[in-house]
């Protein structure tokens, strides 16, 4: 029979030794673990986007994608729509126009619970490649009026993916706006200072404020159009750029036309035939925002 004191002492010694050993192992491996985890994350993100750097906006959910010149190329986000067997982890890349640059769906080893051989086929390139280049309204199954072929006999999983991606785009597209280069619409400025978060900036010259840049939203034909515009102190528009639009291809798309956007600078902007709704909405919204922020002009 061992005494209680001896038991306690032995247990304490063993536990202490184990703890010391583990603390050394932890100290040795933890930097490496952090690094591999970062690389894994980066690899995952680069599978859906061409960017070289990703800045986290919402933890584990949303990143801004930056190219080698630190210019935004779009965003990457993750969504978890409910599929047939459980939630489906999807990573989606968007370019600055809101078009999909890549889709990656986690494999069974990473937590996908769809039926092997049926729903699990959503991870295969044959399915995910279809999304590249599409924008929100096209991301629907062909049965539902979109452009995506469902996996045979796995309509529920396929529809969950399209719905999840579409909802993701709708939720996160607003963040596309923060990635634009304000210098595009105000080339004369040296730097910018934010006045209203994500909405209004002073354009700073060498010593003084020389104008403003603002971010606005117009209600287009299909979806909202997000734009950014610069105005100098005289009230002249220095430039307008479309940040996000999913207007009808070929028609509403005309508002992206540089020639049309340039007419803002000359103050002669007029609705484009064939894209009246979209272009008129944009012109109105630029004017309305200009009125709203006029007081900030020196």
């Amino acid at each position: 029979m061992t005494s209680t004191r001896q038991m306690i002492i032995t247990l304490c010694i063993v536990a202490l030794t184990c703890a010391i050993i583990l603390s050394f192992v932890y100290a040795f491996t933890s930097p490496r673990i952090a690094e591999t985890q970062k690389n894994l994350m980066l690899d995952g993100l680069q599978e859906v986007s061409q960017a070289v750097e990703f800045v986290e906006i919402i933890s584990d959910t949303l990143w801004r994608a930056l190219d080698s010149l630190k210019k935004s190329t779009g965003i990457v986000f993750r969504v978890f729509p409910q599929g047939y067997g459980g939630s489906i982890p999807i990573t989606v890349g968007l370019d600055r126009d809101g078009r999909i640059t890549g889709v990656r769906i986690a494999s069974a080893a990473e937590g996908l619970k769809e039926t092997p051989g049926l729903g699990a086929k959503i991870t295969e390139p044959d399915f995910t490649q279809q999304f590249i280049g599409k924008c929100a309204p096209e991301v629907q199954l062909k049965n539902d009026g979109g452009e995506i072929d469902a996996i045979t006999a796995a309509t529920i999983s396929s529809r969950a993916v399209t719905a999840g991606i579409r909802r993701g785009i709708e939720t996160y597209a607003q963040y596309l706006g923060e990635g634009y280069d304000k210098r595009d619409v105000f080339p004369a400025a040296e730097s910018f200072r934010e006045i209203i978060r994500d909405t209004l900036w002073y354009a700073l010259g060498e010593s003084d404020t020389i104008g403003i840049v603002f971010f606005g939203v117009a209600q287009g034909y299909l979806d909202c159009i997000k734009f950014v515009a610069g105005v100098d102190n005289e009230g002249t528009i220095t430039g307008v750029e479309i940040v996000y639009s999913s207007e009808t291809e070929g028609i509403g798309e005309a508002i992206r036309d540089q020639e049309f956007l340039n007419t803002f600078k000359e103050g002669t902007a007029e609705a484009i035939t064939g894209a009246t709704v979209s272009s008129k909405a944009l012109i109105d919204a630029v004017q309305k925002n200009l009125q709203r922020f006029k007081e900030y002009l020196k």
Partner: protein
Amino acid sequence: MNELFVVSASPHVRGKMNIDLAMRLVIIALVPALSYSVFLFGIRVLIITAISIGASVACEALMQKMLGKKITVTDGSAVLTGLLLAFNLPPAVPLWLPAIGSAFAIIFAKQLFGGLGYNFINPALAGRAFLMASWPLFMTKAWLAPANGTLSGIDGITSATPLSLLKNAANYGDPSIIVRQLNDFDTIKNIFFGNIGGCIGETSALLLLIGGLFLIIIRVVDYRIVVGYLVSVAVLVFVLPTKGTLMFHLFSGGLFLGAFFMATDWVTSPVTHKGRWIFGAGCGILTIIIRIWGGYPEGVSYSILLMNVFTPLIDSLTKERVFGELSKKKGVKK
């Protein structure tokens, strides 16, 4: 030597029925449904059935030879397994599928457990479950439209069987209209006569009913399981929230095939009378639960498999008291 008396354990009085005869009678009872299926889906049905039976018999002979047993393929049980498996396959499956399914059914579900009389689950259904898990695409999509109707039994919808249409009506149009169409008298008539798509042997409720009643009358099949199964389905259709009517649920899918020909398998169903009622009712309850809340449109095969597993338990719980044995409550005082 012929005058020697045979001394053996009971039973001493034997009926005329034996395994060979019973198997042949079941096969005969299935022939009308098979013939009609050939008419509906073409000669391909016959090829699939032949492959399935051939593989089944070949595997049985091979396994019995390898295990050093007497080769008993002439008793017809392997033929019946192959035939029932073919009945459970969609008509457009690739031709290697029945062969693999039969091989699994005979080798793993039957012979490795000791052969006829020792298998704990219905081999044909085990083969089907194996194929379902391995090639779900073929097993859920390889349908053919019947020669004289549409796959779904209603005009205009050609890509789903009635049960999967009922389950996922919203995928094919306005659900309320589709459900009404499905429960229409014309549709029910199509389902009853078998002018719809489905697995090879399950489409015609009428012919299966005739074959099944024949087997019940000649006492090859026990009516208790069949009645327990069908009545529990009928009761649950009334009690539970389902979109299909009573007629729809009784005639569609593989219910008659399962109730008359597979749940009643001698080896894998209980031997006691009370146990057979419980077994049949259990099959019915599981079938309706799967049809209403499950992931699959049809639940007959899985419900029978699940109840097969419960068979020994049901048997031991419903064991009749041996004549003279005292009930447990009274006991014997020492």
